């Protein structure tokens, strides 16, 4: 990530506002209701002070990240195991993808220790009362609460989507802040939870002519770098589900911005071919790849249905892994999409996603072809493999017979 020092767009909070707690919250912070609640309140107080909030407010739904053993390691696995001894989630709580799909893991060369640790993490979350969704697109697979409802979404693409499209209110939560919200049912009222901070003070003008999910992903990656809490995007046409998810995921990867609008005021900057090339140069390290991955964020029902149509009569020249939530598994089987996609030679994987899956490793893969900007960033930095960026239509045209 090349930083040109342009944090002029960021509002630097130094309001000396400190969080005021009710007597009950104060008692919980002091450990009078047990260690777990004390820990959760310690986190809420830290983020409250960090974001200049003066009170805690109720939230209705927490979505947690930190489920894949590859991302949280032994430290995270032990932490969750300890926590699950007495922690119980107080509100509806859903979770991000794991490292792999338990149904098909035997087909991959994954060591037993990884599988056991992943199982441990899953059990800890289930013991605390999670809905085992293992998906990074909760906004696409669950019924949404009414507009204006406060939620706590840790998954960055989901937080941005919830704020920008679903009309929900969340900050771009951290793994532990969403966890603290799940345990207490509360969150500090700051940043994007405050109506005043949801108005963007910067507009990015989409000047790239070719508008597909790859260019929107790169636009998002660019926007994340220059925007503060909220940003306006002008000139965004064809913002269908696929393009929109890609925009959210790119934005969530590079920045701390948690929301976009399609109308805004303030300073204007352009996202043109030159800026897009800079993003591409940063993320792309190969001109081709050994395997293809689709699904960061995971693909929902609509995108799977589109894909089944696009792949009619075609067959992938390379191995192609497609990541989806388990919630749509039965539907895509019953509707015949799964069969059509598998007939084209692709593998459908559930409960996991491209980002940091142990199924893609530099010992067995040199370079990956993907249309996901988010996937590209983590494949390169975390999995240590090279990346070739292609849009979905390019992939279908060039990588199938």
């Amino acid at each position, binding site marked *: 990530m090349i930083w040109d020092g342009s944090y002029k767009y960021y509002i*630097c909070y130094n309001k000396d506002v400190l969080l005021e707690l009710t007597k009950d919250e104060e008692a919980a912070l002091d450990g009078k209701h047990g260690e777990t609640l004390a820990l959760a309140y310690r986190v809420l107080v*830290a983020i409250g002070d960090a974001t200049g909030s003066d009170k805690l407010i109720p939230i209705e739904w927490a979505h947690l990240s930190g489920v894949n053993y590859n991302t949280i390691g032994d430290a995270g696995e032990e932490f969750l195991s300890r926590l699950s001894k007495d922690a119980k989630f107080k509100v509806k709580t859903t979770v991000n993808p794991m490292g792999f799909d338990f149904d098909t893991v035997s087909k991959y060369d994954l060591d037993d220790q990884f599988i056991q640790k992943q199982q441990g993490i899953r059990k800890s979350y289930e013991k605390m009362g999670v809905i085992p969704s293992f998906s990074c697109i909760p906004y696409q697979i669950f019924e949404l609460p009414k507009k204006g409802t406060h939620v706590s979404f840790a998954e*960055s693409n989901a937080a941005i989507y919830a704020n920008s499209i679903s009309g929900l209110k969340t900050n771009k939560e951290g793994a*532990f802040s969403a966890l*603290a919200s799940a345990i207490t049912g509360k969150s500090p009222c700051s940043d994007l939870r405050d109506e005043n901070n949801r108005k963007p003070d910067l507009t990015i003008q989409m000047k790239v002519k070719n508008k597909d999910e790859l260019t929107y992903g790169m636009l998002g990656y660019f926007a994340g770098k220059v925007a503060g809490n909220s940003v306006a995007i002008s000139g965004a046409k064809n913002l269908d589900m696929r393009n929109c998810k890609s925009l959210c995921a790119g934005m969530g990867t590079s920045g701390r911005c948690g929301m976009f609008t399609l109308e805004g005021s303030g300073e204007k900057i352009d996202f043109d071919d030159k800026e897009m090339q800079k993003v591409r140069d940063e993320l792309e390290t190969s001109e081709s790849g050994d395997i293809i991955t689709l699904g960061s964020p995971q693909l929902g029902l609509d995108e799977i249905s589109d894909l089944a149509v696009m792949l009619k009569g075609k067959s992938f020249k390379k191995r192609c892994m497609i990541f989806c939530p388990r919630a749509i598994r039965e539907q895509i089987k019953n509707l015949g999409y799964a069969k059509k996609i598998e007939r084209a030679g692709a593998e459908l994987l559930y409960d996991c996603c491209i980002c940091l899956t142990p199924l893609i490793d530099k010992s067995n893969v040199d370079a990956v072809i993907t249309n996901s900007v988010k996937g590209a960033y*983590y494949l390169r*930095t975390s999995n240590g493999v090279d990346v070739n960026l292609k849009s979905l239509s390019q992939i279908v045209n060039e990588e199938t017979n």
Partner: protein
Amino acid sequence: MNVKIIVRGKTKGTLLVSKNPINFLGGIDKKTGLVRDKNHDLFGKNLANKVLVFPFGVGSSVGAYTIYSLKYNKCAPLAMICLKADITTASGCAISNIPLVVVQKQDYESLRDGQQVSLDAVSGKIL
């Protein structure tokens, strides 16, 4: 210099100053503390036992677990100084008991790589 305390604690150490924001999940090796993002200005440097100065955290929310893992693996920074403490960094430091403070922009810009400091995130001062 005066600071806003986010996570309390006291430490003494050498500043490691990052120009770029940090995506802890992608950018840092949680087992060693090494910066592994080739495009980051701290690439190849180690965060372990340094007082880490960076504008703010970006990207994955799971970065909070990376911070906790660094502590678990004994390669965490001694403390962190930010311009704007984002939620991922603040919650990661709170769980890991890593002192975290926020400083004003002009103070932030006066911090130099390699400088020895004494950070008091109890009374709120950097000397």
